């Protein structure tokens, strides 16, 4: 086994050489700047490389999707962001987009069409499943074989876009033991970060939403909690820390366990 430096392809560079890519990997603001989410981004790129996917990123030409601005009530800013991104997508003739962020997935897929931007969207959980089903990626069974894993449904992926089974199928490919929280799928409890909550202090209450959600997970005594959203990642990581379980329980994104399973 040897290490290879990945040079992440960027659309503007490809264009300069007269080339393009089939898929845009939309990294999103969290995936680009949040330290924890950056690890997810890196692992997902390794998966794309491993499966030899024809992809590229926008790099500095990417700008925030506007999801949080819209949900905070700033419709002007959201629409500016949307139109700017659509212009960039169209300049590179982008048709297919993959992202690890369910909020951006939702906004680009469902809300950008109002401004003329219609794209084929893939959440990375769906995309990884497709790679596995197309035999472009083989997941090693041994690494997580004895692990007890539970999966937290991100609201914008599940209730928002009805993606419940793809992440579960991918997790099961690792050969782990998948256990369900009492509130799962369409009944899953929010982690507390959506609707721009990520960026503000919570309102007064008895406890934090992430505390309650982490409790749901801890009831199962898992070794690993998995999610598929950078916001959920922040919240559940905080929750596990709050209960001082960070040594016993790890919180991973789906991309991370697949990369780890295959020692990428």
């Amino acid at each position, binding site marked *: 086994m040897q290490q290879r430096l990945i040079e992440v392809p960027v659309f503007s560079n490809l264009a300069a050489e007269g080339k393009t890519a089939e898929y845009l990997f939309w990294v999103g603001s969290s995936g*680009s700047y949040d330290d924890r989410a950056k690890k997810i981004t890196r692992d997902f790129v390794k998966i794309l490389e491993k499966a030899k996917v024809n992809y590229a990123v926008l790099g500095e030409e990417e700008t925030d999707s506007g999801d*949080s601005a819209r949900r905070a009530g*700033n419709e002007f*800013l959201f629409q500016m962001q949307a139109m700017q991104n659509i212009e960039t997508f169209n300049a590179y003739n982008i048709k297919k987009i993959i992202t690890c962020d369910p909020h951006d997935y939702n906004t680009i897929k469902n809300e950008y069409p*109002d401004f003329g931007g219609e794209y084929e969207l893939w959440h990375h959980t769906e995309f990884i499943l497709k790679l596995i089903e197309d035999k472009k990626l083989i997941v090693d069974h041994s690494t997580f074989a004895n692990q007890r894993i539970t999966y937290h449904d991100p609201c914008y992926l599940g209730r928002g876009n009805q993606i419940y089974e793809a992440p579960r199928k991918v997790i099961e490919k690792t050969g782990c033991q998948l256990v369900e929280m009492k509130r799962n799928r369409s009944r899953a409890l929010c982690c507390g970060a959506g609707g721009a*909550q990520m960026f503000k202090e919570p309102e*007064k209450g008895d406890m934090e*939403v992430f505390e309650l959600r982490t409790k749901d997970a801890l009831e199962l005594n898992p070794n690993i909690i998995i999610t598929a959203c950078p916001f959920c990642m922040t919240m559940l990581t905080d929750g596990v820390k709050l209960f001082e379980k960070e040594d016993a329980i790890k919180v991973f994104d789906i991309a991370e366990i697949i990369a780890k399973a295959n020692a990428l």
Partner: protein
Amino acid sequence: MLKQLIFLATVLIALGVFAYSVRNILLNISFLKKAYPLNRWGERFARLLKVGFGQTKILRFPLIGFLHALVFWGFLAILFGSFEMLIDGLFGLEKFLKILGPLHHFFMISGDIFAAIILILIIVFLFRRIALNIKRFSGIEMTHKAHTDANFALTLILLLMVSLLGMNMGYSALNPSEAHLYPVSKVLSYLIVNQNESFLHIFEQINWWAHILLIFFFANYLPYSKHFHVFMSLPNVFLSKLEPLTQMSNMERVTQEVKLMLDPSAPIPEESNDLIERFGMKDIEDGTWKHYTDSLTCTQCGRCTSVCPANLTGKLLSPRKMMIDFRRRMNEKSPHLRKNKQYDDQKSLLDDYITREELWACTTCNACAQECPVNIDHPSMILEMRRYLFMEESAAPSALNTMSTNIENNGAPWQYPPSDRLKWADNLYINE
């Protein structure tokens, strides 16, 4: 003949009062905004069958949901008989729809059985509401009046079922050859079968009149009750948004302005003569017809609030309260608005009913909308009010202003320069 005339008069009164209530609702809708366009009729019918008639969402609470679904299906079966009573009463006939043969038999048998089932269930529901302390039925929005309304409506249904069974008992005793069409009442009629014929006649007639008058009264009470869902739930489900729950509605006016900002040569839209609308919602008239029908349809069952992460963690927000508040404010303001479109009482839905603290606690997780058995969309109302706060009053929590400024300046919610956007890709190695 006299009976027919009296009946006709009561029908006309009932219809007249009902028409007045409907007229007011339609007038209220006329000063509300448009929501999404109504199209995709095939999908709407499919949804009506599934969520409406199939009761799929109420069944998400399996036990109590099933019991309620039985009441719903029972009402549908009983409706046939009510319709027949209307024809009989107007034309002086008896059991006119017998001409439908087996279909009539089916509805008589099922209606009779369901009447008994509903009767028992209503007693169970009343017991749950009055004697058991069920969390879902409590909350700041659940005032004494709200509880009285619920119990009163349930009592009316109870009486409806008692009179229906009484009527069927009398009829079975008088017409033994048809008694098998009323399996429950037939058994109950053993209590009265020994009485003479004129007693049985009077017994049947009293129950007949009681039943139909209760229907008329109930129908006219509903528009002022949380039990209006009896009428509203099917239409509200049919008209509900087909787009994904997390898709927010677009603001066309903003689109026009943003396009102008990005490209000053874009065609300038014609100025409309209407009053310049507010951005977002401050008071009811800034809402859409769907916000209003949602508020009319809400049964105050509390399923939404019982799954709301904000509410579960002790925050003020309760999605059910949004619906109740909207309807209360509409009731307060609309009689004046119907007379004078400019009416202003120095109050508004925002602040006087719904506080900012409630609005900012929402995570837009859509658990409420997912759970609501009648497809009410609470987040849409919350987000419209946030739009008002942000764009008209610049009154968002300061952290959200910071986030916005960051996005404007650096294209990210945090203070990082755009030139760092690809930093994550530095020194990225793969094992091969």
